[in-house]
């Protein structure tokens, strides 16, 4: 079991990880997902002390590895690591890459090491390339060798840092299927990945990282089907969000419509849908503009879920409580038009604002 207590890490003044505490059970397969730059690599590298945490403790089993004077090399033997950029020893052949550490660290005899190595190379399906140099391999082949090299040290846990990100799409599968094999054999893995399907199928637990920590964690179905928190939702559903806030007294309708159209085009919505959305916005805004008094503000949020192709519009304003669509001041035709274009319209009052949620 790996226990992490109050782990913090910053680069210079830049706080990356803040006070993370989490336990990882033996045999668990953890998928770490999250936006770029959120600290996934930093987190996983702290685990085997490739980065020195600023504070906090890490326990592997009962032993604290962050204690001073701990034999870091012995710790690292238990924690294999596979990098995005393979990091094979470029001057050594595939076989030499795999036998080097077993011979030098575990002090295996050469015969023993070669025998083991060939077994692992067989397992990742690349034994026939044993005498090639890394430069003669494709990316997928390199990564499989890196995995074999890692396995040859019999680690208890393997840390993967985006093992397929540097690969041509056609080579991703061969690497993922090797990782699946490992997982099936019962090895603990911690995998940073952008392959959501893979994470969903393979992981026993998913960590979504954001805001300098583990923002949300749970089983794959929790995270992927029922994400609870805002940022997780945006990330998981590949929500493309538009938001704009405007002072009613200074509003420029055409600028708003331009922004909305651009947003729609950017995410490749078709003409009809783009028209729908801009029309809805136009109707809503023009109706409210008529009622301009002093410092009313309106806000427009658009959300496009790329996964299920659903779209959502949200309007907020700080008018007095009122469901505009039922107000006599709102043009009747406009209401009809908006209702015709949407699947559902919901009104609620929230934080002193009128909130309208429209689903397309």
């Amino acid at each position, binding site marked *: 079991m790996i226990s992490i207590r109050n782990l913090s890490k910053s680069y210079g003044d830049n706080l990356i990880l803040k006070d993370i505490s989490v336990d990882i059970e033996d045999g668990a397969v953890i998928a770490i997902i999250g936006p770029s730059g959120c600290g996934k690599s930093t987190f996983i590298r702290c685990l085997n002390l490739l980065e020195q945490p600023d504070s906090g403790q890490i326990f592997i089993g009962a032993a604290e590895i962050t204690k001073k004077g701990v034999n870091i090399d012995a710790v*690292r033997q238990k924690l*294999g*690591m596979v*990098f995005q950029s393979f*990091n*094979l020893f*470029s*001057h050594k052949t595939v076989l030499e890459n795999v036998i080097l550490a077993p011979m030098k660290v575990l002090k295996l005899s050469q015969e023993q090491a070669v025998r083991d190595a060939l077994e692992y190379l067989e397992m990742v399906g690349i034994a026939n390339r044993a005498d090639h140099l890394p430069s003669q391999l494709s990316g997928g082949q390199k990564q499989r060798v890196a995995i074999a090299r*890692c396995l040859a040290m019999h680690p208890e846990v393997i840390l993967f840092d985006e093992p397929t990100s540097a690969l041509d799409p056609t080579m991703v599968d061969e690497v993922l299927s090797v990782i699946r094999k490992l997982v099936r054999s019962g090895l603990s893995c911690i995998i940073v990945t952008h392959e959501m399907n893979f994470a969903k199928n393979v992981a026993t637990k998913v960590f979504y990282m954001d805001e300098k920590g583990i923002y949300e964690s749970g089983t794959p179905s929790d995270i992927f089907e029922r994400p609870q928190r805002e940022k997780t939702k945006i990330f998981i559903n590949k929500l493309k969000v538009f938001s704009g806030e405007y002072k009613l007294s200074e509003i420029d309708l055409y600028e708003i419509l331009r922004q909305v159209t651009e947003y729609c085009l950017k995410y490749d919505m078709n003409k009809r849908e783009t028209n729908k959305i801009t029309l809805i916005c136009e109707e809503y805004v023009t109706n409210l503009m008529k009622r301009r008094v002093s410092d009313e503000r309106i806000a427009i949020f658009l959300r496009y879920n790329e996964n299920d192709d659903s779209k959502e519009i949200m309007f907020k304003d700080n008018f007095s409580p009122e469901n505009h669509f039922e107000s006599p001041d709102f043009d009747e035709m406009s209401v009809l038009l908006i209702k015709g274009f949407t699947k559902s319209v919901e009104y609620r009052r929230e934080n002193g604002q009128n909130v309208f949620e429209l689903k397309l």
Partner: protein
Amino acid sequence: MADFIQGIKDSVYLNLIYEDRYLFLIKGFGMTLYLTFMTFLLGTLIGALFCKLRLSKNSTVSKTVIWLKTLFIRLPTLVLLIIFTYLIFADTSIDTVTLAIFAFAIKTGSYICDIMYSAIETVDKGEIEAGRTLGMSSFMVFRLVVLPQAIKNALPVYKNQLIITMQETSLVGFLAINDLTRASQVITSRTMDPYLSIVITAVAYLLIGAVSGLLFRLADREKHLCRADFINK
């Protein structure tokens, strides 16, 4: 034509055969080889040491080393030779050849420090990390991963450095050591035949250069052979 050949014959006779002068040249050649070899060996060690210190995490140490090697590079070799012979080791009974080797080696070492440092810098940091995560100590990683690649990177410049060192050793004339250059000068001053011994010196230096180039290439090849062997086993 016959005259010309006779001229060359005479010249060869007088410069080489007469009074066994070729022995003088051969001894000089041997001295040059010895100086070059020892200087380069010691220089490599010094360079490695400097480089190691320069890579040190202690910035005082690394800055001192950078400062020192810059000083050694900027001081003319002759001045270094003088400082070594007449200031630092003035009161010792170390023989001049050893002193000269030491002075040259300091100079060569400073250059080699630069060469090694930049070769090491070009080794992929990722491979070092990979080595560490496999449980190798930092020294093991250095020895097994960094060094072999650094050596490969540095080899062409390192080879040129050997040639430079070889030519620099001719400065031992300052300490009246009879190396190749000096030997040919002695002969020339005896015969006042201006060209032959220059030709001989030139040829000798070219020869050493070519042979050393060849040796380096063989060393390279041997490594390849080793690898092939190892795989076939």
